[in-house]
């Protein structure tokens, strides 16, 4: 048994909004795959995957029952879940896996602000508030069913009470995240005008925003400068001359810099005279907008199209023919849990048609992605090639945030320590060990179970089970914790937690475990043990 060295805290599960379970007309047809290599999940297991992806919680038993009975389709439930208020939080976490802004440190620390210095419990809220600003703006645009173009053109951001206290923001008040407006004269440019994005993708004085352009190019139009071939031999030969001249004149450099530098020239309102100074970083500098053209020797442009500056950049990005396909690929990749391949092109084309037909609103796109075979796959057929077997993510680990939210909803347990969410940070927590993305050293979610992942899951399951029994979480509602579980109890619990019927031998093993522990430590401990085992069942910790 691992020594219990972590402080445990409790929380209240989020309220479940009502979802109509009125039956669809007739018996819902079982989904079939148009891809012979893929075997689709059964409806209950698919509903479970969708619920975790959109809401971060398991379907309740009633929801599982109706989809298993095929009286309500998964699509019907999905449609309702796309309007669930928890979607916004899930999108923040999903988008973080791609945008990488929920990092552990920025060039400015919380304790450089006099208001926060001396109180270490501000460290975690500060990091997350800064990193989540652009993510919450994007998530808010999605749940408001606005066009994705707004991500680069809208005139507001999202801020909470902490950011509103620190930065030049007009915020409606209170501590919650809410649409807010910067008061320092920055243009309307969506995430491109957020401190959070540029604190993550900072620039040095001499880099002149070029790294930032590489980031937005990759994130918004899927054009990755890092993927371009560079002749290091020729680059090194340039060392004796003026670097800035070489960037403009050498064919070796121009391959990237001819398109990169003109975009960088539009970002000089965010160019700090000292990249560690709060005053320089938190405030937009409208007077510096035109310095870019002087310092870089090029006029602002977006891939060849002249732009006036940041005030026009977003509109040009949104009109770029790569913008919509990139959004489709990005959301598909996040929900498929794998990168798209060339073989996905026809599916992506269809998704793009849906996206464009829906005026680039993301909710219809998400609904369409949820119906793709790749998303619904639960296995690869025996006849599939090894390459296909390696490519598809048919069994997916719950991400750390999914684990945290699903366990919290079931047991009321929220794992914190010194103000740090244990499954959401790496300074005083286990985000990466639990398979998560830290946005700097780890940029892709873990795909297979590992030892550290297992240790975190085990500890989470133990603590959550103990909390549920002690505090009466939803998971134990209706159970007699002074008596052994009935077969029906175990079947219901297993169905709820895994969307799978309990195998007979498994039921026997669980009952034997309960009796064994109860004999030594009593009924309560026996229940804790059984529940902790269920909460780390392979079918629970995966989707």
């Amino acid at each position: 048994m691992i020594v219990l060295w972590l402080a445990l805290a409790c929380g209240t599960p989020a309220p479940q909004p009502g979802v109509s379970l009125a039956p669809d007309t007739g018996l819902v047809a079982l989904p079939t795959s148009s891809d012979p290599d893929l075997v689709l999940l059964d409806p209950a297991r698919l509903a479970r995957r969708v619920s975790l992806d959109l809401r971060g919680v398991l379907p309740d038993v009633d929801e599982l029952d109706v989809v298993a009975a095929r009286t309500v389709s998964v699509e019907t439930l999905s449609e309702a879940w796309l309007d669930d208020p928890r979607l916004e939080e899930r999108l923040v976490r999903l988008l973080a896996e791609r945008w990488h802004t929920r990092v552990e440190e920025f060039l400015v620390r919380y304790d450089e602000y006099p208001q926060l210095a001396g109180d270490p419990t501000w460290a975690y809220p500060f990091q997350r508030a800064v990193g989540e600003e652009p993510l919450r703006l994007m998530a808010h645009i999605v749940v408001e069913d606005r066009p994705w173009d707004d991500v680069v053109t809208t005139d507001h951001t999202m801020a909470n009470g902490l950011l509103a206290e620190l930065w030049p923001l007009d915020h409606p008040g209170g501590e919650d995240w809410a649409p807010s407006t910067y008061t320092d004269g920055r243009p309307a440019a969506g995430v491109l005008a957020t401190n959070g994005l540029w604190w993550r993708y900072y620039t040095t004085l001499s880099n002149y925003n070029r790294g930032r352009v590489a980031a937005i190019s990759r994130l918004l139009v899927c054009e990755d400068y890092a993927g371009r071939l560079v002749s290091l031999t020729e680059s090194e030969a340039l060392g004796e001359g003026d670097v800035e001249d070489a960037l403009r004149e050498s064919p070796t450099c121009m391959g990237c810099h001819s398109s990169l530098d003109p975009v960088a020239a539009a970002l000089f309102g965010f160019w700090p005279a000292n990249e560690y100074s709060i005053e320089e970083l938190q405030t937009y500098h409208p007077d510096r907008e035109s310095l870019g053209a002087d310092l870089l020797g090029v006029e602002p442009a977006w891939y060849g199209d002249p732009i006036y500056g940041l005030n026009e950049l977003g509109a040009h990005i949104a009109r770029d023919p790569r913008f919509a396909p990139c959004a489709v690929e990005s959301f598909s990749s996040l929900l498929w849990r794998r990168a798209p391949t060339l073989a996905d092109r026809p599916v992506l084309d269809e998704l793009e048609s849906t996206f464009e037909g829906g005026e680039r609103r993301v909710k219809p796109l998400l609904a369409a992605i949820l119906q793709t075979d790749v998303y619904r796959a639960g296995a690869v057929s025996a006849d599939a090639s090894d390459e296909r077997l390696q490519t598809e993510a048919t069994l997916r680990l719950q991400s750390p945030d999914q684990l945290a939210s699903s366990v919290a909803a079931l047991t009321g347990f929220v794992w914190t320590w010194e103000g740090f969410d244990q499954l959401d940070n790496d300074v005083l927590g286990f985000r990466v060990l639990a398979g998560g993305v830290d946005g700097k050293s780890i940029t892709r979610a873990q795909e297979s179970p590992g030892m550290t992942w297992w240790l975190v899951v085990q500890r989470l399951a133990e603590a959550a089970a103990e909390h549920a029994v002690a505090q009466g979480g939803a998971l134990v509602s209706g159970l007699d914790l002074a008596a052994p579980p009935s077969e029906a109890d175990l079947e219901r619990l297993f169905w709820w937690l895994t969307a799978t019927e309990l195998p007979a031998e498994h039921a026997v093993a669980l009952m034997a475990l309960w009796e064994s522990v109860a004999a030594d430590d009593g009924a309560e401990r026996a229940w804790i043990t059984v529940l902790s085992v269920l909460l780390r069942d392979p079918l629970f910790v995966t989707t």
Partner: protein
Amino acid sequence: MLLLLTLGCVAPAAPIDPQPSVPLDTAEPESESAQDDGPLELEVPPAELTATEVASAISTLGSAGLPSPVEVQEVYLWRLDGRSGDCPQGSEANVTTPFGGCVAADGWIWSGIAEYAGEPPESPETPKSFALLGDLEVTSPEGDRLVLGGQISLELDADSDTWATDYAGTWSWSLADGWLGLAGASAVYSAAGSRQDGTTTLTLDGSFHDGSLSVRLDEVVVSSAVCGGEPVGRFELRDASGYWYVLDGQDCGCGPVGWADGTTLGEACVSLAAPLADLAQAMAGGL
């Protein structure tokens, strides 16, 4: 205890960004334009100011004086006299503090770092060459703040009677009367000057934000011997829309005022002789 989970092989963590997104349909367009239907042309809103109003606004830039490295040098070295014991740490005129800052014996709170190179001047009227890099905030017990955010250098050459300065960043002292006292002010500029036979000249290029106005002085030249000390050059004023007005003041600070949509609003003159002369004089005092 039952170990129900079979542990599998762990996919190695990605050390570098793996999302170089699939270049499925993302090849850079062959044409110069990234747009499907030709370049996107956005409508520029109509100008809200007249030519005279533009010139007038630009002329207010110097009403509190222009940012001077000499003033920064003076206030920084004055405050450094408050150093006590280990707060702030650092040798000579350099400063380092721990994260979270430290409190000096006089109650001032120091937070950040500063690196200073150069001899201290005997008086503010006779500055000496120096360089200062700052990420520092010093707060008095009453809440008055000295902020150093950026880098400044001043080089004086008494042999040739010339000087040059680079001033970049947010530098403020809340009790100052001039530019340093303006809330939210910052600037990035380079300037060079000389004093020959009683004539002071100054060339300046850079941008200024005084807390409300954003102004660009583009290759501005001023001489005490011509145009009554008024500058010659391009003067730009930023509109709230993100577009700029441009006053092409090649005629002693007078000239046509253009708007971002290409229209000319008329002719007007800026009046910046006094603040530019003060700035030049402050530096020349050290020659």
